[in-house]
């Protein structure tokens, strides 16, 4: 099996004998004593929530509709006033994503020479090097677990650090399975997701594991636009706050300026995804749309 080389087993909490991602370096880097060790001290992601107002987090799919346009869309989102950029990595089986993002991923992957995690990190690096604005928003990569396993946990973390990526969101990596990633990802925040179905026990586990902020999935189901916000969203956010002082950002189904303003009134951050990806083929439209979201939230 070739995964032991770089990727290693995803499994180390429950089997101490399982191979760790990198036996040679993990001893120095690893936090075996507390595998859910919290945030890097000087987190750029955390700082994005310290502006005295709710943060706007905008999702852009790397490589969609092509590499150059997705890079322009990132710059457009930054110009429009995004506080954090969430950069999606195209993947073939995106369990947590709805049709808009899944189809964008399919288009990106079908591009010349394929497009995956390595290419997405390159797009992030190009943006971070030349964001086109004075104060570039930090980039958090949203990827599924298997592309990271395939490239190798340590290799992925190394490339992300070199590119200047501030954090990751891996929706199919629960905190219980995150130890091997934590051991190699120093300097990169790992943001975990809560769900409407999370029990108090789960909220405690997820919030303890998360760094920089908590991603509150507002509704059951996959990403994508919804006509109205989930009932009880405010309670949901408050239930999370019982467990953590970290900022709580709300995503899944936030697609209009009015919804963004509603969420901004109850949460520390607003995550908009599918509604941006839908406009991504025209970066000017992205900029206008993001500007409208930011204005509504700050109005």
């Amino acid at each position, binding site marked *: 099996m070739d995964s032991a080389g770089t990727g290693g087993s*995803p499994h180390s909490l429950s089997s101490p004998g399982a191979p760790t991602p990198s036996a040679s370096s993990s001893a120095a880097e690893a936090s075996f004593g507390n595998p859910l060790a919290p945030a890097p001290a000087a987190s750029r992601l955390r700082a994005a929530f310290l502006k005295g107002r709710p943060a706007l987090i905008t999702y852009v799919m790397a490589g969609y509709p092509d590499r150059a346009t997705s890079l322009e869309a990132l710059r457009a989102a930054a110009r429009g006033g995004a506080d954090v950029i969430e950069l999606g990595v195209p993947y*073939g*089986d995106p369990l947590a994503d709805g049709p808009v993002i899944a189809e964008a991923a399919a288009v990106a992957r079908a591009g010349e020479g394929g497009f995956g995690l390595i290419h997405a990190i390159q797009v992030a690096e190009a943006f971070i090097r030349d964001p086109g604005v004075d104060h570039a928003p930090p980039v958090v990569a949203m990827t599924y677990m*298997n592309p990271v396993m395939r490239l190798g946990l340590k290799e992925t973390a190394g490339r992300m650090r070199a590119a200047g990526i501030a954090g990751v969101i891996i*929706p199919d990596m629960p905190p*219980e399975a995150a130890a091997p990633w934590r051991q190699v990802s120093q300097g990169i925040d790992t943001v975990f997701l809560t769900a409407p179905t999370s029990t108090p026990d*789960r909220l405690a586990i997820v919030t303890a594991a998360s760094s920089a902020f908590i991603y509150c999935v507002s509704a059951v189901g996959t990403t994508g636009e919804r006509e109205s916000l989930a009932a009880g969203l405010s309670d949901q956010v408050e239930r999370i706050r019982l467990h953590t002082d970290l900022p709580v950002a709300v995503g899944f189904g936030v697609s209009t300026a009015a919804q963004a303003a509603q969420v901004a009134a109850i949460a520390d951050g607003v995550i908009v995804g599918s509604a941006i990806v839908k406009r991504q083929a025209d970066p000017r439209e992205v900029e206008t749309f993001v500007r409208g979201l930011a204005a509504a939230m700050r109005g």
Partner: protein
Amino acid sequence: MSDVLLPSADMAYSTPDAQGFYGPYGGTFVPETVIPALQELATSYQEAIEDVTFLEEFISLLRDYVGRPSPLYRADRLAEASGLGAVYLKREDLNHTGAHKINNTIGQCLLARRMGKKRVIAETGAGQHGVATATTAALLGLECSVFMGVEDIRRQALNVYKMRLLGAEVVPVADGQGTLADAVTAALRHWVERVEDTFYVIGSALGPHPYPQMVRYFQSVIGSEILGQMEEKRIAHADAVVACIGGGSNAIGTFYPFLRDVPAEDRPLLIGAEAAGLGLDTDRHGAALTKGTPGILHGFYSYLLQDDEGNPLEAYSISAGLDYPGVGPEHSYLKDEGLVRYETVTDAEALEAFALLTRVEGIIPAIESSHALALLPRLAAELGPDATVVVTVSGRGDKDMDIVREAGLGG
């Protein structure tokens, strides 16, 4: 033997661990939304199999509704044609609905009802698991939706019709290649949306924990019966026990009691037959264990056919039940540990085995099961003319008539 055997609770071969890992394989890699449901499922499953009332109902349905135990039939003409001393066929094809799938759907649907769920969903490839789920849902009065790829709907029109007759909704899945893997993804996504009132009946020994363990338990009746029937028929020794592998539920159900109850020195060779499709040197096969590398798909870590970027690849087999790019995690563990040997069988070899069993025994097997039967001549060459081999015939071939006719069998 007159009664149905179930695995005992204490297990010497003790996988998985509490987190659902088989060595490094298995686990739970899914969005947070369904994790509470999986934890609830794991608890309910454990309570159910320790509850005599639940087990009695499960056993009585297997006996009186499914028709268990299924026979262990001595196929002498097949043995002779294959050059073996004796061949025994475990006749899962004689179960109600025509395959092993119903052992599992009865267990899971009883559990769904016990958990107060009114609605079940399932994915299906060949349609056998869909029909078994629709059948069991009808029996227990549950609402049922079955996700099925559009390509499989085309290949298995008869089963689609059966499911609808049984009152199930068949949801066409046009994503990807329109086959089994796409149906699993669609069912998982749907489950994420409807997790509060819906029970997902997974059809093979795969998916996030506790599914592989639970499906193994419900299917272990196959291997447990084989062991009891061998004793009853005074078959002192089998040299090999063979089953086909798509996700691997009939195989793990066959092998597990041998792994758990038979000491290694007395244990027959356990051999799984994967689909080599058009050949391992092409990209048209379903041999995850033989040609894949470990990765995550559908919530678990296992051998997987994947590209350089970690995207699942399309699998192919003439049999809709074997064209899955992954494989149940316990099989990955058994491969690495050398406890089970995995071989591959091409479409052409499977068709040849299909034709042989049909002609010499008057038994028309599923093309999936024909992959296991195709190993018999190889085993004769390896083990000699006196060897005894047990083959699990996981299902019957009625559903495959169009495919074998297209392939030119029977003129």
